[in-house]
């Protein structure tokens, strides 16, 4: 593996029960780039993310994050690796029993031996980064959708990770807030030199922030390329996705009848 790449996925195959969700996925994310994983619903992009995060075990293949193969690590190695990555979940996944500040401080409290005052300063710094300065005493239930997502980002970056993951950052947000989040993702990459993986189906946001885009469909990678390459791609499925065209799958009459009468 080159020194440049922070994620290397090789021949990843994943099943959900007996259904194949991911098929022969090969993917590389270079250091300092923003990689967008794009695809429609059911394309397997969320499953791919769960595998990258080590939440699901693949059927076959290898996933290297920052040089560690997460499909065969020891608990201690996984522990060290996870301290160097951050994740902003779709719904924020803030702990509802804790204040925003406590949420952001949680990784520090668990993994670093720091005194309370230092942790508080670090927590406020990160909240300022995501424009939530002064909100640390609120409970997650008191925040709006966009604020929850930004607080989740603050928690994800509290340990200054090398690698940052976003799951559907703009889902359920209005265009303005969504654009602010895009700006934030770009700023994090530029100011903190993070490598960022974003899973999304929002085209505007994807084209705005992406260095490269991986398009998934039915568990396979259709293509990987820069924004221009994706726009210029002549694959029909890619163009369907870009132009919001409904799928033009051919219907097999016999199969259709059989499904109805089964």
């Amino acid at each position, binding site marked *: 593996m080159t020194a440049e790449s922070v994620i290397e996925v090789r021949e990843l195959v994943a099943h959900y029960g007996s259904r194949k969700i991911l098929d022969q996925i090969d993917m590389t994310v270079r250091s300092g780039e923003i990689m967008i994983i794009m695809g429609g619903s059911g394309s397997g992009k969320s499953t791919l993310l769960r595998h990258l*995060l*080590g*939440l699901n075990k693949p059927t076959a293949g290898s996933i290297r994050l920052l040089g560690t193969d997460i499909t065969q690590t020891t608990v201690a190695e*996984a*522990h060290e690796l*996870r*301290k160097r*990555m951050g*994740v902003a*979940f*779709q*719904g924020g*996944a*803030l*702990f*509802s029993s804790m204040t925003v500040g406590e949420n952001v401080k*949680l*990784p520090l409290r*668990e*993994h670093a031996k720091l005194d309370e005052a230092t942790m508080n300063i670090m927590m406020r710094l990160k909240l300022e980064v995501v424009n939530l300065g002064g909100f640390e005493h609120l409970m997650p239930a008191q925040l709006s959708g966009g604020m929850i997502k930004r607080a989740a980002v603050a928690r994800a970056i509290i340990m200054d990770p090398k690698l940052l993951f976003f799951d559907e950052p703009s889902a359920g947000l209005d265009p303005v807030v969504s654009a602010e989040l895009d700006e934030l993702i770009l700023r994090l990459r530029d100011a903190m030199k993070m490598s960022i993986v974003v899973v999304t189906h929002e085209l505007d946001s994807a084209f705005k922030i992406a260095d490269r885009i991986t398009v998934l469909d039915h568990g396979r990678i259709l293509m990987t390329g820069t924004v221009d390459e994706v726009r210029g791609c002549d694959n029909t499925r890619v163009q369907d996705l870009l132009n919001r065209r409904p799928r033009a799958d051919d219907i097999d009459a016999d199969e259709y009848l059989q499904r109805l009468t089964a």
Partner: protein
Amino acid sequence: MAEDPNNALTASVEHLGRATVEVIEEFGYYFLLFFESAYWLLFGAFQKQPVRLPSVFGQMMTIGIAAIPIIFILSFTIGVMLAIQGIHTLKTFGAEEQVVVGIALSVMREFGPLITAIVVAGRSGSALAARIGTMQVSQEIDALRVMSINPVRYLASPVLAAMLLMVPALAFLSDLAGLLGGAVFTNLELGLSYSAYVDRALEALEADDVMQGLIKAMVFGIIITVIGISNGFEVKGGAEGVGKATTRSVVLSISYIVIADMLFTYFLNR
């Protein structure tokens, strides 16, 4: 359409087999969860992932201290009830005075731990399943895992520690409340003085009776923890799933508590 009897037979055997495997699997999961929680309690500190004392104390407050009033009231009532029944039954033999022995033994060995366990299962077992189930649904458990905070260590171990300490403590409180209830009623009904009641109760009781009750209470605490938490972790399918898990954990906890109680009583009294 007539069914092939062979098919129906194999189908029912297959169904039975699957159900058995599921039950065994679930029990395996319970034991795994228990050992993992205990492991983090004992060795977490050496892995730089200690179980935090404040969260243990927090759990002790909600599981233990907050349950004191209801357990006191219920146990007191059970004590009174035992006295009423005992006096009524023993009247036939003209041996009402012996009621103290009956109350003391049954409260210490059975009712104290059982009432406590049922109340704790209803209050805290359901709350555990609901809390962890909701966290599962809102991806908070995933968030813990990617932050390299072991969910069992962070969520289950403090509860296990709190249960192991508080359920026996509550059971002992329940013992005392039950005895008090019995004392008040026998005093009113038979005019037996409190000091005579205490003397007779102490005469009837041995340390072993109290120990039996407290050991049972500990086991009940483990049952409530493991069932509440495993049902929470297993939640699928949103709010409805959380509701199901909550109900299931209470029903299962109480059933297993009663069964475990029976087995314990049988083996400890051989």
